[in-house]
């Protein structure tokens, strides 16, 4: 069942076409992540879905509801953590939660939210005295307070240290276990890979591809990169390169002195053949590694390497 459907969304700011044609569906309980380079149209797309910016064209529906007719009802169904965690500096987390709770018909208990976002100890500190990570956690808590069905998290971990990022991942996974639908944007590919059920890559206002992270990686290539280095002189590396070039599964080899980088469709078979040869020749292999492709490779493959700012 789709809780959100976005169809042919378009938005321009003057001569700049920020969103050209964006369509996707999000299922109940999934973590749907939108990734893309800076200026790709992620935030504009999200702001249109959140009802902050009216689209020039296209439809956004939350089940049976749409912004034109059911704005109030939609606001009660969604919780938003904006990119800029705007808060009242002189209020405490507890006071923020009480204030935001008054906006909704139904609420999750304040204590439960504070516990979920790990702010129970800091509930009476003014926001100006909280760290960046604590502020981000409070922003997520505020998005949860109205017990929404769909939670939008716009770059929740940007600017946080690794520990704070991992803590936020735990919170997002806890929300997923509560059967919440999460729409996430991020610049961190490891985050998208770890948390997402599906990833949507947007570039230059258009969706480039949408799929599960593993499927995207598999779709990118069937090859693996195998790296190995030999002890002693270059001869072992030169002879091994010649042997490997004869294998049909090997597509490309780079050699740098005693080091080899081999791209192969079948790393197991390639290494077996290589070790048979090195054993015969009495060559000694020093190090060996097989590099897995990541979502970052997929991202670079789809969006290119040029500067976007």
């Amino acid at each position, binding site marked *: 069942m789709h809780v959100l459907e976005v169809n042919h969304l378009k938005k321009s700011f003057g001569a700049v076409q920020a969103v050209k044609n964006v369509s996707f569906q999000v299922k109940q309980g999934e973590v749907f992540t939108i990734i893309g380079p800076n200026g790709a149209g992620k935030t504009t797309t999200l702001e249109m879905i959140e*009802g902050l910016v009216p689209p020039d064209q296209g439809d956004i529906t939350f089940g049976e509801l749409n912004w034109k007719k059911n704005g109030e009802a939609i606001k009660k169904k969604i919780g938003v953590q*904006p990119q800029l965690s705007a808060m009242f500096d002189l209020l405490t987390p507890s006071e923020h939660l009480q204030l*935001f709770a008054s906006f909704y018909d139904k609420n999750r208990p304040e204590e439960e939210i504070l516990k979920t976002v790990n702010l129970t100890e800091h509930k009476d500190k003014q926001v100006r005295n909280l760290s960046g990570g604590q502020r981000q956690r409070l922003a997520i808590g505020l998005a949860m307070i109205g017990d929404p069905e769909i939670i939008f998290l716009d770059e929740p971990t940007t600017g946080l240290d690794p520990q704070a990022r991992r803590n936020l991942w735990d919170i997002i996974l806890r929300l997923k276990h509560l059967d919440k639908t999460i729409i996430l944007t991020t610049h961190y590919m490891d985050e998208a890979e770890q948390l997402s059920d599906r990833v949507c890559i947007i570039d230059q206002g258009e969706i480039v591809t949408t799929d599960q992270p593993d499927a995207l990686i598999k779709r990118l290539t069937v090859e693996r990169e195998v790296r190995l280095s030999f002890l002693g002189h270059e001869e072992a590396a030169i002879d091994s390169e010649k042997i490997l070039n004869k294998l049909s599964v090997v597509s490309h080899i780079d050699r740098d002195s005693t080091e080899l980088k081999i791209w192969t469709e079948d790393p197991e078979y390639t290494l077996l053949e290589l070790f048979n040869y090195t054993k015969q020749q009495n060559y000694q292999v020093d190090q060996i590694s097989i590099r897995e492709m990541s979502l970052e490779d997929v991202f670079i493959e789809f969006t290119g390497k040029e500067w976007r700012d």
Partner: protein
Amino acid sequence: MARLMNQFKQMFLMHLKITFREKQAWFWGLFFPVILMVIFMFIFADSDDDFEASVAVVEENPNEVSTAISDQIEVIPVLNVDHQLESQSEAEQLIKDQDVTAAIVLPQSEEDSDVLLLVNAEDEQSTTTQVVSGVLSNIVQQMNLQVVGASETYAVDFQTVTTGEHELSYQDFLLTGLIALAVAQGGLFGMIDLVDMRRKGLIKRLRMTPVNMSLFGLSDMMMRLLFSVIQIFVLALIGVFLFNATLHINILGLVVLFIVGALSFNAIGYFISSFSKTTEATWALRTFLAF
């Protein structure tokens, strides 16, 4: 309805907490008007509109004319006859010692027609000298008319018109003026934080929720009214108890004027906030409007 009431209560409390935790709000909203009032009161509270001059009357040789003039002088309210002397030299010493502003030397005989006015040479052109001289000339002129048996053809008729039954002092004007100023400043400058809220993205953040933004504005305005009431109360207490100002209060009129005034200045503040993009621009525009 209950949800809206709770929403209003929470937003009112939010505005209240933010205002009372904000040191700048305390300073500009309360301490600044109080400091302003204390300074003005100290500078101007002693300036009295009642004019009085301390004089000495020298009657070396009492006679009918000198007694008549002396009697006239004593009934003039602005002249305080502090010394009745018998020699001119004593009078000169009192003037030198600045014990009296002037000395009036009365005629020594009925034939003597001169009334001498002694003043300090440094104060010759002072207001006091001019007033005493004028008063004395008037008395002498009356005596002259009396001697020749003439009566005045033209006379100055003096009437006063008052705006009410109370006599208002400078402190009273200052107190009411500063209260009005504080209310106006509160309305105009209190909205600065609204621009700041918009700049920080807080208004946008609230719009992402089902909050009733009209209630948000109303709760903000109610909190400002409460703050203005505190301002009035504190300023009135200090003015009345420290500087003896008098508040001639028509409670109903005060309430109506206060609400209309505060709401009007709040509305102007909101208006400016709605199109000012930065707090600096808002400050400049408000300062211009305030003056």
